[in-house]
């Protein structure tokens, strides 16, 4: 090709915005470290301590395993029940939040507002609240996970709902179907697999979350972290960490495989 040297190139846009962004980010980082009194020196100084702790963790005290199997199973049960309850509650909430299903602004936006509110509360705080209400044990943990799951699944589902093919909905209207029939025949089949996938994904997250809920007295394996750390029995803590890691990896792996098959 013949390059035309005299062709004037259009002026590239100014890079000033990028430089300014970088400067602001650096300023924020620097400011945060000053405010929290975190310095590089402290990190380097503290480094040997980490190895001390690791050294105390090994060898892990494998006999402790028998003590925590029950608590681990409780953790998984909490996640399972919490996710299931949350998923069921999420169905009507998601339908009410989706603009292509619920046409009324006055119905949709309050529901969405509550949904956003739920999602801003961290699960540990939710657990602490439920512990205050119903007392210590796996029940408040399960309730916290249910509320957390509701927030997450409903949010993901209503976004998926809003992107469904509206053709079948139109076809069901033309057939003379009522509003519930339209949802049942045109919406649910389109969203089913996504919903299952979101629920499994939330279950993965819940198993991880349930592992620490015990810290606030909401049942599960987390309680044993607190005990062993409190008594400085790091060899026992190590067993709990390894066990949790194993279980979480196993559940993540199988759930990911399942979700791949679903979609």
């Amino acid at each position, binding site marked *: 090709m013949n390059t035309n040297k005299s062709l004037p190139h259009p002026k590239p846009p100014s890079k000033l915005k990028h430089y300014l962004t970088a400067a602001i980010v650096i300023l924020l980082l620097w400011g945060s470290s000053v405010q929290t009194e975190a310095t590089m020196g402290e990190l380097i100084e503290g480094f040997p301590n980490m190895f001390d702790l690791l050294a105390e963790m090994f060898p892990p005290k494998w006999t402790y395993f028998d003590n925590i199997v029950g608590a681990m199973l409780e953790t998984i049960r909490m996640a399972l029940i919490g996710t299931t309850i949350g998923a069921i509650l999420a169905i009507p909430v998601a339908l009410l939040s989706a603009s292509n299903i619920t046409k009324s602004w006055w119905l949709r936006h309050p529901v969405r507002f509550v949904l956003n509110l739920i999602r801003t509360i961290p699960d540990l705080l939710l657990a602490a609240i439920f512990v205050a209400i119903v007392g210590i044990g796996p029940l408040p943990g399960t309730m916290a996970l249910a509320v957390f799951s509701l927030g997450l699944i409903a949010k993901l589902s209503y976004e998926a709902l809003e992107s469904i*093919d509206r*053709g*079948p909905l*139109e*076809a*069901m*209207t*033309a*057939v*003379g*179907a*009522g509003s*519930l*029939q339209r949802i*049942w*025949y*045109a919406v649910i*089949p*389109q969203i*089913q*697999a996504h919903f299952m996938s979101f629920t499994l994904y939330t279950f993965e997250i819940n198993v991880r979350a349930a592992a620490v809920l015990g810290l606030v007295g909401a049942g599960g394996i987390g309680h044993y972290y607190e005990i062993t750390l409190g008594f400085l029995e790091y060899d026992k803590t190590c067993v709990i960490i390894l066990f949790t890691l194993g279980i979480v990896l196993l559940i993540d792996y199988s759930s990911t495989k399942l979700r791949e098959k679903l979609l």
Partner: protein
Amino acid sequence: MIELRNVTKLYPNGTKGLNQINLTFGEGEFIVIVGLSGAGKSTLLRSINRLHDISEGDILIDGKSITSAKGRQLRLIRRNIGMIFQSFNLVKRSSVLRNVLAGRVGYHSTLRTMTGRFPERDMNLAFEALNRVNIIEKAYSRADELSGGQQQRVAIARVLAQEAKIILADEPVASLDPLTTKQVMDDLKKINLELGITTIVNLHYVDLARQYATRIVGLRGGQVVYDGPVAEATDEIFAEIYGRPIEEDELLGARRA
């Protein structure tokens, strides 16, 4: 019988989608509506089963006004009007059979349809419908495993299972190749002749319109500019409907060559 009386459709931006339309469609007719895109073909068709609301006038289906019908009354009128869409509008993840049975939900209570237990007669109707469009062996396949032409035939089967007395087809062959176009149009014609179902089809291709219609309605700028038997719709008439001589892409035959 379908009667449109002084039907006008005004869009919120002020444009007139339909302008003072007066038409009467008799039982068993095969009407093809032609016109440029934007002439109001789709709006007209969707007004008949009230997927679109009209601004003025009245539309009567067998003497009952669909314009003023509400709730259950509206659903009962719609139950008698089947619709076929350009993009088929099947639930792709559902089986062919379930898509066809979806045509039956207007006949049952919400609770009954949600359990998915359709009466024997409905199952027979569904299989009969699939048989009529020659895809009964695909009944348990997922809809998205089928080709475009087969999917449109499932949509036709849905309308048949619905026991519709009127079929509205909005550009039913626009996303199909010439060969499957012929199959789908043949199916529609066969159903029209054998079951006497009034059929109204929007078409882009002039030669297809000529081949299948008994009556042609020409729309231009939301107004009826031609309404008459197919034999009288000459090239000059089509040129008038389109506002210019017929072009190559308005002939399916030309595209195939």
